[in-house]
């Protein structure tokens, strides 16, 4: 209990320190120390309460409710403050703020909102989330420390506000821990909005026009999601048959009335998880410095969205609303993968693949069966680790080469072998068989096998597309161009530390996935589906197979270190038009010309412009129909 409070509140301390003391030395040491503390605390928390099932905690002090209300008002005012310079035609953004805050505040201040008994919750789901936030978030923060100075050296046109940036990160930790440990909807709501705020600040960090635009887009989209909460809170207060704003109670109800708030919560969740049609904010977020993309928009914040949906999953199980939500997830999965296949901008590909993977998780949550939740949790873990790794690697590559274009990464294995290996591990973690995501995909397929053939189609097609674009990327990296210039030496110690730890984590999670399953996931599932006895499909043989494959996948590439005798080096086949430089050929006009290779992006078939609009419209329709159906 105290540990939880500590985790939630502690990040505020470094946030304030860093904000107030602009010295770089202090900043660095504060970050390192507090990150270590947070990580240790979350690990400790995990080990101390892993086996203790679901625990609820009351608050030690009375006026928590009012505290939150005050905080919420402060938050709303902050939002409004940020909106002060908006041009008139964007004035509807503050209107959204008013619309969602005024009713809630009215209800809360007038005491109509039921007072929760258990403010805090601690079960394996929160523990998993806390670990992800504490460890991965921490590593990203460490990386940030090394990254930001370089970022500013590269972009002298931006004002150096590193302190603000890092303190926002800590603020964000505060919010995230808050979300995952709170049980009261109004608390979650508050923290939720804090993450929105953090996101807003970070996206707008560089203060270019594009960044500002994108940050406001993120703001209104996310606020829209927050609306889901405010309506839920109001509804739960009004509807006497619910009469509680405790999340755990709501999700445990069998009352059909409960469907409406749950759907709204999922709406908020999907919004934060950037599902279609709300995906645009996440893409806009890619203008932010890479660590924040990694932190906010792939590994952690969006996970808040899926976290909420998973919390709701038991209610969604076997309902039409659940299937609809799963459908949206499925569509998002396919379409986002297809779009990712058509893009060559590294960060955008990462963004879309994030959206796609979140779609898969939402799909699982929507299905809500025990195996689906199993898969969803696995996906969350693997995705968070691997994606964080990917983002940081790509950020580093960007710093070294000045480009995020995947095409420009051709032959990176020659110039930055270590980093490339990390990216490769990250990518492999995303879709290749023995690695993490595939285990989850396997579980998803098995979970869906009897549920719904249509959803299965989305998964198989989306999966194939995903393989396509990751495959391209991997291939581009491993092309050996023979230019051996080591650019890696410019990477600093903090970056390497973060990168290496994440790499080890990625492999570790894969190797140890049976343990993860048994110790983290199964207990959680057992709390919601008491009949769950571990997944029968993952029997002995399969696990052994997976592990054998893993062994091969990890150890075979080590063969690269050995030199094979009796090789005869030759030049590539250029149809006989070779000149002495293997990278050039004799062109038609009689001059030597460089050949150049570019991946396929299938723009005729998959195309961001072409796919986005229909996908948005369709999903929007589905969501509206779902909400209307639930109301009726």
């Amino acid at each position, binding site marked *: 209990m105290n540990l939880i409070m500590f985790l939630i509140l502690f990040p505020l301390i470094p946030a304030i320190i860093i904000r107030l003391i602009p010295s770089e030395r202090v900043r660095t040491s504060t970050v390192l120390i507090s990150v270590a503390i947070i990580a240790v605390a979350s690990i400790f928390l995990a080990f101390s309460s892993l086996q203790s099932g679901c625990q609820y905690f009351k608050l030690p002090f009375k006026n928590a409710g009012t505290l939150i209300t005050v905080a919420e008002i402060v938050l709303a005012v902050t939002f409004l403050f940020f909106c002060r310079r908006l041009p008139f035609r964007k004035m509807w953004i503050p209107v959204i703020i008013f619309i969602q805050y005024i009713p809630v505040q009215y209800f809360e201040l007038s005491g109509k909102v039921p007072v929760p008994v258990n403010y805090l919750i601690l079960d394996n789901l929160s523990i998993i989330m806390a670990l992800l936030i504490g460890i991965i978030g921490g590593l990203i923060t460490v990386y940030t420390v090394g990254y930001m100075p370089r970022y500013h050296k590269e972009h002298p046109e931006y004002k150096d506000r590193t302190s603000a940036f890092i303190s926002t990160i800590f603020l964000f930790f505060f919010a995230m821990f808050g979300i995952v440990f709170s049980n009261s909807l109004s608390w979650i709501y508050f923290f939720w909005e804090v993450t929105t705020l953090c996101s807003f600040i970070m996206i707008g960090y560089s203060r270019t026009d594009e960044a500002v635009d994108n940050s406001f887009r993120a703001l209104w989209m996310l606020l829209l999601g927050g609306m889901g909460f405010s309506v839920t809170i109001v509804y739960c207060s009004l509807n006497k048959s619910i009469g509680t704003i405790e999340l755990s109670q709501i999700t445990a109800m069998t009352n059909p009335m409960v469907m409406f708030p749950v759907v709204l919560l999922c709406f908020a969740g999907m919004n934060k998880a950037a599902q279609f049609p709300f995906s645009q904010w996440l893409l806009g977020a890619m203008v932010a410095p890479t660590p924040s993309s990694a932190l906010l928009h792939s590994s952690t914040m969006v996970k808040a969205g899926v976290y909420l949906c998973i919390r709701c999953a038991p209610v969604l199980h076997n309902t039409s609303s659940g299937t609809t939500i799963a459908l949206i997830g499925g569509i998002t999965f396919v379409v986002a993968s297809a779009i990712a296949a058509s893009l060559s901008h590294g960060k955008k590909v990462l963004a879309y693949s994030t959206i796609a993977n979140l779609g898969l998780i939402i799909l699982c949550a929507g299905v809500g069966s025990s195996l689906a939740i199993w898969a969803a949790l696995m996906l969350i873990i693997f995705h968070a680790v691997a994606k964080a790794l990917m983002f940081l690697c790509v950020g580093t590559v960007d710093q070294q080469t000045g480009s995020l274009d995947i095409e420009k990464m051709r032959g990176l294995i020659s110039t930055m072998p270590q980093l490339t290996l990390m990216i490769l591990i990250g990518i492999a973690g995303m879709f290749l068989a023995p690695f993490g995501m*595939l285990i989850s995909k396997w579980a998803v397929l098995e979970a869906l096998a*009897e549920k719904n053939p249509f959803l299965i189609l989305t998964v198989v097609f989306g999966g194939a597309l995903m*393989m*396509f674009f990751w495959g391209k990327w991997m291939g581009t990296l*491993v092309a050996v161009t023979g230019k051996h210039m080591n650019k890696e030496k410019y990477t600093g110690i903090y970056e390497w530390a973060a990168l290496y730890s994440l790499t080890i984590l990625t492999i570790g999670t894969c190797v140890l996935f049976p343990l993860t399953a048994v110790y983290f996931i199964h207990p959680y599932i057992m709390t919601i589906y008491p009949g769950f006895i571990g997944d029968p499909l993952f029997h002995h043989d399969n696990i052994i197979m997976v592990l054998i494959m893993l062994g091969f996948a990890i150890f075979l590439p080590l063969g690269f270190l050995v030199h094979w005798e009796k090789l005869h080096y030759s030049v590539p086949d*250029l149809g006989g038009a070779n000149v002495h430089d293997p990278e050039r050929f004799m062109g038609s006009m009689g001059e030597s010309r460089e050949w150049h290779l570019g991946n396929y992006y299938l723009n005729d078939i998959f195309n961001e412009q072409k796919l986005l609009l229909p996908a948005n419209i369709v999903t929007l329709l589905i969501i509206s129909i779902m909400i209307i159906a639930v109301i009726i």
Partner: protein
Amino acid sequence: MKALLGIFGFVIFAPLAGGILCGLDRIVTARMQGRYGPPVLQSFYDVLKLFQKQNLVVNRFHGYFLFCFLIFLIISGSILYAGDDFLMVVFALTVADMFLVMAAYSTNSPYSFIGAQRELLQMLAVEPMLLITGIGFYLAAGSFDIGHIVSVGKPLIFKMPGIFFGLVYVLTIKIRKSPFDLSTSHHAHQEIVKGLTTEFAGPTLALVEIAHWYETILMLSFVFLFFASQPVVGILLAILIYFIEIIIDNTNARVKWQFTLKSSWIVTLLFGGINLFILYILK
């Protein structure tokens, strides 16, 4: 024990059977073209010869990738013959293919690069159908376990004709036959020399050939699974399917990737999807 025996049998006999099948294929193809054709053992001669050749490389990495390709292909087959999870077989196959693609990429040569792109496209075209086949088996036989699928009493083909058709359709891609031999093979030389394998020479190319034998047998085993309850009929039918593939190979020009991708997805959606749906309703 039985599983080990299966694995062992696969590792040893698949290349033999695959090689002979390829030899027969070449003879039949030759006859269909009015030619006489090579000896039956020709594929073995080819591979043995390749091992005697110089190992020409552009750089030294693709050998390892190809080795991994072969290993994972064998793993994939082993999972199948050990009677394990069907999906796992497909996934391992994907990994194997991925290594092949990586190998082609790593040579950094124009034609292999385009071959690699096309191989990726082919994987994109094939993968959904393979997974759907697995799910079809699950719905029809009640389990993903191949051991279990094999022991189902009635031939599963009756329950999943659509899926069978879809599988045969993408099989053409998988065993690299015209009209879908986009990325490599003896036939796709028209645009991209030898595609994927352009830069592999000597022993490394031999690995690809051997892998191709394994792949062929693996694919035919998929076909066999539909008739698993009658093993003899199953084997005959698998061979018949192979023969049909040869005929298809000889009666079609090679199509473009757009057609390959679209048609196989449509077939997957229509035949695979509808079949799945029916299985689901019947269940």
